[in-house]
Every structure is written in structure tokens, then in C-alpha cells.
């Protein structure tokens, strides 16, 4: 059985999914790739938008999401963030 992912890991997974799609992705793809329920995905996406990690683009075909510079910075420093939060029990 897989170990339960921490909040920090889930955020990293969502950001990586968006990044791997050249910064533009539909919510259904995020749902599929991030292995979350719809409700959880929405909750995380809203949080990521609020924190300026992701921007939501609305167009006639629906919504897409792209990663911001802050989101990239999170991915770049993820290892350090994960180590720190895991060690100090903040995950």
C-alpha cells in the first residue's frame, strides 16, 4: 500500500502535472494525474490560486490552469521544503 501523501507532496504533484503540460492543463487532466477526488482537487486548486502558485485561464472551451513563477520556485525548492516540514513534523 502506498504511504499517505502529505499536503506538501500533493501540492508538488499538482504543480508538476501542470508544469509537464507546458503550463496549460484542463482540470480533468489534473484530476486524472494527481490522483485526488474532485472535491479535494478543487480545494487544492483554489488554495494554489489564492497563493499565486497557479492561475486560472477562462476561455470558451472551458478552464485551464497554468503555473506561475512562484509555483516554479516551489518546485525548485521542494526538496528543502519537504525535508524541513517532514523533520519538524509540519507535513
Amino acid at each position, binding site marked *: 500500500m502506498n504511504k499517505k501523501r502529505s499536503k506538501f507532496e500533493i501540492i508538488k504533484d499538482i504543480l508538476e502535472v501542470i508544469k509537464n503540460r507546458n503550463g496549460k492543463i484542463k482540470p480533468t487532466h489534473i484530476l486524472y494525474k494527481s490522483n485526488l477526488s474532485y472535491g479535494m482537487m478543487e480545494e487544492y486548486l483554489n488554495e494554489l490560486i489564492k497563493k499565486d502558485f497557479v492561475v486560472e485561464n477562462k476561455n470558451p472551451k472551458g478552464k485551464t490552469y497554468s503555473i506561475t513563477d512562484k509555483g516554479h520556485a516551489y518546485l525548485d525548492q521542494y526538496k528543502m521544503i519537504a525535508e524541513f516540514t517532514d*523533520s*519538524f513534523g509540519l507535513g
Partner: protein
Amino acid sequence: MTKSPSFMTYFYLVPTEFLEFSIAMEILFAIITMSVAFFSFRIYRISRQRETKLFGISFALISISYVVWAIVHSAIVFPSIVRIAQLFTQNISRLGGIGLLMQVMLFISGLGTLSYTNLKIKSGKAYYLIVGLAIIAIIAPLVVTLMIFEPVESSALYGLLITSRILSVFFLTFLIYSYFKEYSRNGNGKTLLIGLAFSLLLISSVNFIFSLTYYEAYIIGHILELIAYLFILISLILSIRK
């Protein structure tokens, strides 16, 4: 060196011959805890996760409490500090008492914030209750004593210190439980080190209570505290190294 006798009456536990040692330790603890706070805020800036912010606030409060403690102790060793304080008030003894109260409140608020962070819940009400009740527990007996005794009796300060140590023991027990439980989940050696650090802080808190009668306990308490903060520093360095 001349030491202010009126100010000294407030300093219950600290054997005067160990004051310099005590100040050096407090500055060291302040630097270590501020380093943890600094890196926590740095990580918060990248991750924007409230847990890291709260963790940073906890350690910043603990760090400031050590700075206040060091200033209060320095006033005994360096009379020039007392002379500066006299520019603002003639009641130096009471100023010393306020310094002590501030130190205790900051330290307990730091531990309370850390305990709240470890609860992993998002509730301002719970935070208000934890830190609020802890501060009331510190202030209430002091207010009662002040109402009965005027001028302030040293017993009020003994009471304040013992209450603060009991609260520390209470919060530290919770933190030790949380960190060992976390270690059993993640198997991370650094988490174990932090659990051990809080265990040493717990022993040092209990030990300090005995320093009312045994001065040696004061030194042992500081050494245990130093080892505990070094454990936290080692965990921090291992966590953030590339």
C-alpha cells in the same frame, strides 16, 4: 563589580556567580531559536503554508523570550543598564519583575503556538483557548499575590516561575508525544532528534524547579537546554543542506 541589590531581590534562582554563564547561554539559545524561526519564515515565503509560518512564530517568540531574559540578567551584571532604565522609571525592582513576566509569557506563548501547530488543525478559536488559558494561568496567581502583598513579595515571583515551569512541562509533554508519534509514522531520524530535544527541555524544566534549593540544578538545567537546542540546530542544518 557592583550589583544593584534592589534588583537582585528578584533573582531567585540564578546564583550570582553563574550570571555571566547564564547570559551567554541565553544569548546562544536566542540565536539558535531565531535561526529556526528565520528558516521557517524563509520556507513559508516559498511554500505559503501556514504551518511553517506558525512554526516560525513559535520559535521567534521563544527566541525573544531568551533575549528579554538575557537583558534582565545583564542588568544585574552591568549596572549601566540599570542606570539607563532609571531614566524612565525609579522603580527598577518592578521593571525587573515586568521583564521576568514578559520572558515567561513569551516563552509559554511560543510553546503554546508550537503545540497548536502540532495539533494540525485550522482553528483560530482553538489557538485563542490554548494560548489565552496559558497566559491566564501565569497572570492570575500573580495578580492575586499582588493584591495581597504590596510591595511585591518575592513569593509572587517564585509562584510565577513555578507556574511557568509547570506550564512548560505540560506543553513539552504534548510536544514530545507529537514528535515521537510523528517519528513512528515517518521514520525520519531528524524528527527523532527533535523529540529527544524536547525531552531534554522537559527534564531541564523539571530540574529548574529544584534550583530553588539546589544551585547545581540551575547549571545542569542550562546544560541540558544547550544540548536540546543543539539537537534542534543539527536537525535544522541536516534539513536545509543541499
